[in-house]
């Protein structure tokens, strides 16, 4: 295929194609489908962190008005895809996803133990309060610090031949010890929760004994379809998953969680469509979280500021029944040119639910530590932190010894620094005061790996020349439909208003879930290829009509018309081409996947953030007052929605740095932060104007549209930049997030 650079689209951004639906209340989210005969479910969750259920007293609940069933391990149907239960029940082997209502065993506080199904939500809520569960408690371990000694190499990694999470070493193991200047420090991030504004929700409808439809909040309809088909031993096509609008997820919707299965089971048992919406408190124990992680970093450099050694060790928390692995230490191998690098990754299983990927998974965690440490070493070297990074700029991937497919991080640094006014920054902490506040400036780099998965898209031209493009991709907020519409409009030379993009339904052509910043590279490429194929079909059909289209030249598209060449004045309209051939529609399906380039080049998105903070010297309150963020993600498909995604990443980073912390009372193994009053996320007043810049140079080795992922790098590094700015303001280095006032006074 001919590869061409993408035009700079920044002047002609599309407004969000579903904007009108979203601002007028017309967008339908998972819990909002009007299904006849719908009944309501409420989960009852465990109040101990480890042990087993000895009895469930459900008579009162069952007798309460409107109650259809109280489902628990005592009366649950047999889920055909699950192994037969053992008597007595045995604790799950590591690597077993929690099977809801499977047996009496309790793995964490907040585990679903029963579910009340009733005619109305109010009836279900009340009846759930009547269910009385008694337990045999066992002593639990939820405190990371107290159990840190039990951290180990994950079994997954021990058994795997070439896991990226294996211990890694390059160069001279003694390099750090012998460095002329070095720092060593420990960094801690607490457990943090995604908490999208829409709680996870599902409506499960058994259309027939062997036919299931779920309206489910998730990030991948195809993956949910596959997992439900497997659990209920149904042919894939008998399971349909609908998620046209998803009210945010940030990773919480990547997996199929126990509550989803619970609703499907309940719908089967009561023979009615069942709606289950998690309570905000249940969102803390039901859909994963960014794991509590302790990192130790050692950085060494020559006196003139060349990195000589990096040691990066990370230990993340996981559950007793699953290992959640993430890229915590991996950035340290690739971001800077350093001859000697050692990384180690460990997991600490605790009596908690399994963590999962949360925006910038692993890298947001690891880069907080690495970029804080870089700032610390720059200070020790008496170097400007940006100069220090430039001095250690990696011109090729030092981990894989491969050239970058494209890397404009240097341009990011330069553009960001210029827009921010970085050169005016004073190196000495506590140099600037304004209105009685200490003012500080910090920066950090950002990177995130490139992910592109096989994807399909179908493009169907209608008789009037308009086009419907379809793919089972998702939009959890970035504006997938808008970006895909723009790609199709560009390839087909059509006004965007004549294109409709459909997503979020498992009956559409295969696409990966929306995660790992992979949607634009994966699905965008498929849409591009499908529309190219459609264009070629139109050119072939035009060739049947007129000789000029048979010359073998490249047909050109403009304004819904096909031209034989660039200079051709008379076009054939798409509608006329279809009409001439008596076609009501013209359909093509494109499939796109990564080529051999993936093994020949190292592919990453890059970026950097510059942050100004003001810190109250007496109160310890930190206010982020200005942010400049700059990204190199190849082509920017649609500037307006991309900019919003970058802003959103920075806002997420402000939360991570300054306020987000899930606090557990280890006496009970229970979160005490279980709502928005105790788990703080940024509000309007916490967010300053945020300037966003892109390098916008296509990376044509990555994919045919030259575009790489943006969602993750938008947050990766932000917490480090803020911590560095706080140091510049106060002279205090806070290595344990969040940076709350108590740590500064």
């Amino acid at each position, binding site marked *: 295929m001919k590869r061409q650079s993408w035009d700079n689209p920044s002047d002609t951004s599309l*407004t*969000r194609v*579903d*904007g*009108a*639906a*979203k*601002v*007028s*209340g*017309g967008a*339908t*989210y998972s*819990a*909002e489908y*009007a299904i006849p005969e719908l009944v309501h479910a409420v989960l009852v969750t465990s109040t101990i962190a480890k042990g087993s259920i000895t009895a469930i007293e459900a008579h009162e609940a069952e007798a*309460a*008005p*409107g109650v259809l069933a109280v489902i628990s391990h005592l009366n649950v149907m047999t889920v055909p895809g699950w192994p037969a239960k053992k008597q007595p029940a045995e604790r799950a082997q590591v690597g077993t996803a929690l099977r809801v209502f499977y047996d009496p065993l309790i793995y964490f506080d907040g585990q679903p133990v029963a579910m009340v199904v009733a005619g*109305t*939500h*109010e*009836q279900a*809520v*009340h009846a759930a309060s009547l269910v009385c569960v008694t337990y045999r408690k066992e002593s639990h371990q939820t405190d990371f610090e107290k159990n840190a000694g039990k951290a180990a190499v994950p079994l997954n990694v021990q058994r795997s031949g070439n896991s990226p999470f294996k211990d890694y070493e390059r160069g001279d193991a003694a390099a750090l010890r012998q460095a002329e200047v070095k720092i060593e420090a420990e960094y801690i991030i607490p457990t943090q929760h*995604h908490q*999208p*504004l*829409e*709680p996870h929700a599902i409506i499960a409808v058994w259309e027939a004994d062997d036919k299931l439809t779920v309206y489910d909040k998730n990030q991948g309809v195809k993956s949910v379809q596959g997992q439900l088909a497997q659990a209920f031993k149904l042919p894939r096509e008998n399971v349909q998953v609908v998620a046209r*609008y998803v*009210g*945010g997820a940030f990773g919480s919707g990547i997996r199929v969680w126990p509550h989803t299965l619970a609703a499907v089971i309940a719908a089967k048992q009561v023979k009615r469509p069942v709606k289950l919406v998690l*309570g*905000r408190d249940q969102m803390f124990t039901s859909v994963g979280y960014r794991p509590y992680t302790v990192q130790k970093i050692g950085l060494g450099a020559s006196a003139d500021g060349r990195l000589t050694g990096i040691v990066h060790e990370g230990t993340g928390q996981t559950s007793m029944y699953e290992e959640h692995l993430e890229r915590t230490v991996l950035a340290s191998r690739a971001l800077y040119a350093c001859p000697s690098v050692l990384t180690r990754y460990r997991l600490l299983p605790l009596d908690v639910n399994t963590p999962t990927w949360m925006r910038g998974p692993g890298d947001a965690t690891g880069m907080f530590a690495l970029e804080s440490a870089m700032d610390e070493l720059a200070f020790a070297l008496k170097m400007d932190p940006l100069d220090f990074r430039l001095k250690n700029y990696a011109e090729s991937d030092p981990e894989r010894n491969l050239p970058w497919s494209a890397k404009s991080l240097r341009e990011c640094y330069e553009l960001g620094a210029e827009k921010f006014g970085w050169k005016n920054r004073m190196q000495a902490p506590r140099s600037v005061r304004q209105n009685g506040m200490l003012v500080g400036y910090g920066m950090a780099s950002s990177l995130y790996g490139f992910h592109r998965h096989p994807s399909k898209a179908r493009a169907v031209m209608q008789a009037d020349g308009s086009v419907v493009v379809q793919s089972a991709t998702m*939009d*959890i*907020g*970035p504006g997938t439909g808008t970006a895909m519409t723009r790609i199709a409009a560009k390839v087909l030379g059509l006004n965007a208003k004549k294109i409709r993009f459909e997503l979020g339904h498992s009956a559409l052509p295969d696409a990966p879930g929306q995660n790992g910043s992979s949607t634009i590279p994966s699905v965008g490429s498929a849409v591009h290829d499908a529309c190219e194929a459609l264009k070629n079909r139109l050119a072939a059909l035009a060739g049947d009509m007129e000789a000029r289209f048979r010359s073998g030249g490249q047909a050109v598209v403009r304004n819904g018309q096909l031209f034989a060449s660039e200079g051709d004045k008379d076009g054939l309209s798409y509608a006329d081409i279809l009409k001439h051939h008596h076609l009501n529609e013209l359909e093509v399906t494109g499939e796109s996947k990564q080529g051999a380039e993936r093994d020949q080049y190292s592919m990453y998105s890059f970026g950097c953030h510059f942050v100004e903070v003001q810190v109250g010297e007496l109160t310890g309150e930190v206010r982020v007052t200005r942010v400049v963020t700059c990204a190199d993600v190849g082509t920017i498909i649609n500037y*307006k*929605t991309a900019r*919003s*995604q970058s*802003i*959103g*990443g*920075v*806002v*997420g980073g402000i939360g991570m740095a300054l306020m987000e912390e899930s606090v557990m009372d280890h006496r009970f193994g229970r979160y005490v932060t279980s*709502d*928005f*009053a105790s788990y703080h*996320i*940024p*509000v*309007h*007043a916490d*967010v*300053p*104007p945020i300037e966003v810049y892109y390098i916008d140079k296509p990376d044509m080795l990555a994919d045919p549209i030259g575009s790489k992922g943006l969602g993750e790098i938008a947050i990766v590094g932000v917490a480090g930049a803020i911590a560095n700015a706080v140091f510049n303001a106060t002279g205090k280095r806070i290595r344990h997030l969040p940076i709350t006032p108590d740590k500064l006074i």
Partner: protein
Amino acid sequence: MDIDAIPPDAENEDRRFFLKQSMLIAGLSMAPADLLHAALVPDDGPVGNAVKVKVSLTVNGKRKRVTIDPRMTLLDLLREHLGLTGTKKGCDFGQCGACTVHIDGRRALSCLTFALMQHGAKITTIEGLSDGEKLHPLQEAFIKHDGLQCGYCTPGQVMSAVACIREGCAGSAPEVREYMSGNLCRCGAYPNIVDAILEVKKEGLKV
């Protein structure tokens, strides 16, 4: 609760009904159905063992007479019974603002009020903000400035934004940020929302 709050167009039947109910409201909360049963049986009668109450209110200019569970919040009435799902349930706890509606012209969290407490009230939801197909200036501004991503907090943001301007709190960006801080957005659309509000305010459009 003041009986003067009942609009003049409320029917007498509604007024009598309201007076009887208003004395019970304070104790309702999520009380077991039995208690409610005992209290309300004389007039309203049980439905099975549960109790239903009649409520009349105006939603987006349309009179609605509904028989509901007294434990039902205004939010659940809108979403589950009136098909108005534009008002969102984010926390059900009055902490996120996604359920913001206007009650008798004032912004309110519909999850924190029982539906029967709004007997006789005039409710405006996001669906009632536009004039038919023509969007409200703030809805237009939210689209123009991309003041949304996933869209879930958006209806609440828009309803609060209208109140923000109406109440004269949109004089500057810091003022808007302070006023709007009860409406959480996890996608981080905040700066664009502030831009949208300030633009509508600046243009002096009627909100």
